[in-house]
């Protein structure tokens, strides 16, 4: 087993980052332009890192598979971004934000990383305002805040329901300014398909030019992956269509450890599936649960219209099971309870949905109040479903939303491959086993604006990596391997489409590696995924040519990696004999159905080392809590 060095600086929690910044080596301003840095991904983490590193004077190359860096999926985040400004004078502090995040993550994250995140959160808000991000304001001209799940203070900054969009456009504009100044070179419509390592160090990447089909090589002193999460392993998730695991997975196969792959967040209030043709799932704001009541029929396969089901034949199951929190029970509890009643056959007309009903709230408060609070969301719902939620109860169902797991990184956000840095959702570092609302944006920007620019400089100054020529045989070899892989894909000419197989994988993942997991199901999943992988290589049909725009080939390439990652997720979930945060093992629960953690045996990060296809070695990084007392999360 490898020794994992988290490189957490010594000293008191509050001083670690300050001391570390002082102790890090600096690159002389005149020398910065001699260093090439590759950044893959242009979301919050990638764009902010690229802009900041460009401003410092490094030569940066940014790669995105989109036509424009502004399309990255950070753009879809709605709710807001947390910061410990304490503008509301309600008792917030860096320490409180730190504590809430650690607790929300069910005590499976590193103290030092999370503290730093809380510490730099305030600078993020300053930075975004300086860029012209139009955050919501009060009449006095000061910034407005609202509260969010998992916190008792109002610390969330927001820009209507489009906070992610506005923050991303801020980072994007900073990035485009650096493009204009010539510090950053932008490579759009390029998909990273492999990492090039030489003597165990990250030296560059290989990408597919999505227009010409050409496999291109790029070399640098350091490589940064900011490529987001992997919830699309479930086929249906709230992630965008193109979100994928390929960049981090192929880096994993080159030696980067993958941490806590099974930690996935299932969001309780998404729109249900309408049929086989469903392509993705849409999130509805959780705030709806403040006034909506969640229920299903007491009878199995009740085919009546919801308004024909009398009051006494409805089961308000959250209110019944969790009387103190009721419809506002935490995300994981609400999601699992919905699955339970659906598994019993009591979902909407026997299907996969439950009702979210505003009838009582409308009767109590009047339609105008509900319209004022949720009018916009009701409109979105009606656009998508064609039903009017003022008169017919909404239908909702949980959906995969965010992946806390990702590539293992040390305190400097460097993976187990020297020179390979991983930022944002792509790494595992800050959210433990569950992420709180409005914290994803915070982490992406913290990593990109305020952490990586320092730690990458330290790596360049102390490790003094040298840049390899593109003629180095390692580059040629990786390029050749990937050309062969693509040729192989195109030659199979089987009977199933890429999406057919992806949907099959999604069903295995959702049923056995989803909200509730158990030993038997996970063991079956491991076998079924391996079998599906074999089926893919025998029976998939990838249409078209490799010398052209070929979206079928793009999807097939990504599915190869999901078919491997899915197995690791199942293995990780099987190994962790406890329930924590988004990881719920049915064998490990309290009599009330709450997650039962096992701090004695499982208070570690699972960092998986790739050996061969279907074979991994588990490395453990113990989590040491010096400041926080481990406690049971309570929702009573």
């Amino acid at each position, binding site marked *: 087993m490898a020794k994992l060095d988290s490189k957490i600086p010594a000293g008191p929690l509050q001083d670690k980052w300050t001391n570390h910044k002082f102790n890090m080596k600096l690159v002389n301003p005149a020398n910065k332009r001699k260093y090439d840095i590759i950044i893959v991904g242009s979301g919050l983490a990638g764009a902010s890192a690229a802009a900041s590193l460009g401003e410092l004077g490094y030569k940066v190359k940014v790669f995105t598979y989109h036509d424009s860096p502004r399309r990255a999926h950070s753009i879809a985040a709605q709710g807001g971004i947390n910061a410990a400004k304490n503008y509301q004078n309600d008792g917030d502090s860096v320490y409180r934000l730190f504590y809430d995040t650690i607790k929300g993550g069910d005590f499976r994250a590193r103290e030092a990383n999370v503290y730093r995140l809380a510490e730099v959160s305030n600078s993020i808000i300053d930075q975004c305002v300086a860029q*012209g991000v139009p955050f919501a304001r009060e009449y006095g001209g000061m910034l407005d805040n609202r509260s969010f799940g998992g916190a008792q203070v109002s610390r969330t900054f927001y820009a*209507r329901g489009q906070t992610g969009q506005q923050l991303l456009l801020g980072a994007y504009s900073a990035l485009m300014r650096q493009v204009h100044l010539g510090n950053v070179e932008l490579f759009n419509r390029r998909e990273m398909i492999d990492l090039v390592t030489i003597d165990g160090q990250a030296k560059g990447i290989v990408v597919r030019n999505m227009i010409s089909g050409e496999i291109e090589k790029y070399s640098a002193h350091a490589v940064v992956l900011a490529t987001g999460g992997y919830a699309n392993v479930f086929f249906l998730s709230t992630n965008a*269509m*193109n979100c994928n695991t390929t960049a981090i997975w192929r880096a994993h196969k080159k030696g980067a450890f993958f941490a806590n792959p099974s930690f996935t967040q299932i969001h309780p209030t998404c729109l249900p599936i309408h049929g086989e*043709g469903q392509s993705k799932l*849409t999130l509805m704001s959780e705030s709806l649960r403040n006034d909506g009541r969640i229920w299903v029929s007491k009878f199995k396969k009740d085919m009546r219209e919801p308004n024909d089901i009398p009051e006494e034949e409805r089961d308000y199951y959250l209110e019944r099971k969790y009387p103190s929190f009721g419809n506002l029970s935490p995300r994981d509890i609400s999601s699992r309870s919905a699955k339970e009643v659906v598994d019993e056959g009591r979902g*909407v007309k026997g299907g996969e949905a439950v009702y979210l009903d505003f009838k009582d709230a409308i009767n109590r408060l009047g339609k105008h109040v509900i319209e004022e609070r949720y009018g916009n969301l009701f409109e979105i719902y009606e656009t998508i479903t064609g039903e009017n939620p003022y008169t017919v109860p909404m239908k909702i169902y949980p959906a995969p939303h965010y992946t806390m797991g990702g590539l293992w990184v040390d305190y400097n956000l460097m993976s187990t491959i020297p020179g390979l840095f991983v930022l944002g959702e792509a790494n595992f570092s800050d959210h433990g086993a569950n992420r709180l609302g409005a914290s994803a944006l915070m982490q992406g920007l913290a990593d990109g*604006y305020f952490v990586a620019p320092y730690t990458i400089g330290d790596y360049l100054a102390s490790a003094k990596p040298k840049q390899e020529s593109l003629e180095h045989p390692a580059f040629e070899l990786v390029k050749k391997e990937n050309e062969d892989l693509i040729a192989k894909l195109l030659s199979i000419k089987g009977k199933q489409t890429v999406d057919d197989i992806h949907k099959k994988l999604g069903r295995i993942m959702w049923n056995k590696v989803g909200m509730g997991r158990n030993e038997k199901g996970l063991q079956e999943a491991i076998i079924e995924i391996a079998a599906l992988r074999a089926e893919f290589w025998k029976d998939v049909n990838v249409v078209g040519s490799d010398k052209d725009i070929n979206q079928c080939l793009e999807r097939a390439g990504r599915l190869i990696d999901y078919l491997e990652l899915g197995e690791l997720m199942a293995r990780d979930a099987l190994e962790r004999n406890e329930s924590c945060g988004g990881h719920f093992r049915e064998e490990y629960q309290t009599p009330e159905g709450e997650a039962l953690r096992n701090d004695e045996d499982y208070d570690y990060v699972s960092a998986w080392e790739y050996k061969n296809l279907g074979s991994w070695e588990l490395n453990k990084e113990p989590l040491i809590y010096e400041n926080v007392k481990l406690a049971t999360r309570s929702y009573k």
Partner: protein
Amino acid sequence: MTDIKINLLVKVWRQPSTNSVGSFVDYKVSVSPDSSFLEMLDEINNDLEMKNLEPIAFESDCREGICGTCGLVINGQPHGPIPKIATCQLHMRNFKDGDTVWVEPFRAKAFQVMKDLIVERSGLDKIIAAGGYISVNTGSIPDANAMPISKDVSSLAMDAAACIGCGACVAACKNASAMLFVSAKVSQLALLPQGQPERTRRVQNMVKVMDELGFGSCSNTYACEAECPKGISVKNIARLNREFILAHMKSDNIEA
């Protein structure tokens, strides 16, 4: 959730590459009214792949109307017949059984067709690179609340900032003008106090690049506002014009 399907004849623009000749190809489809328009295209594509035929190339990503990736001209209208939504938010229940539906790419001189329904819109990025930002480096910045900004100003700036950069305004305009897009960014930053130092340079630089890239002029037809999925107002174009004239009057014309 209904089991009844609607049958449509979908005529889709197919064009193998930028320099090849394109044409409409007919597809018969039977689809759930609950499907989105793009899911209907997904179904056609899945069928084509089953028959070992090349699927229709089209772009989309978030499918929630915010990323700006998708953009099709449906029955002659960018983003289809329903106002204030992106293509991905259009659902099949807005069509009737037996309808014929025409699907084309966004067409403009500055938007080259790459393949089928995919166009190149990186001109919009080039306009932003010319000045669509506030020149502030990371760090060394005042506290966010050091400068009060009135709620009304902030709200107007947000109205303009809501632009998703899809290019429907360009596709809708008979001159293929990008004025609504450019004016949205110019307005956002001209309204805010943070944007004042670069106010005159910004508008001149952005307009200059817009013209260089082959986007047309504005002749006030307001087609852009009518087709904008985010309802960006043409008042922003008026503000852009004022900003542009003001910048010239101040005579600190930029050279480069």
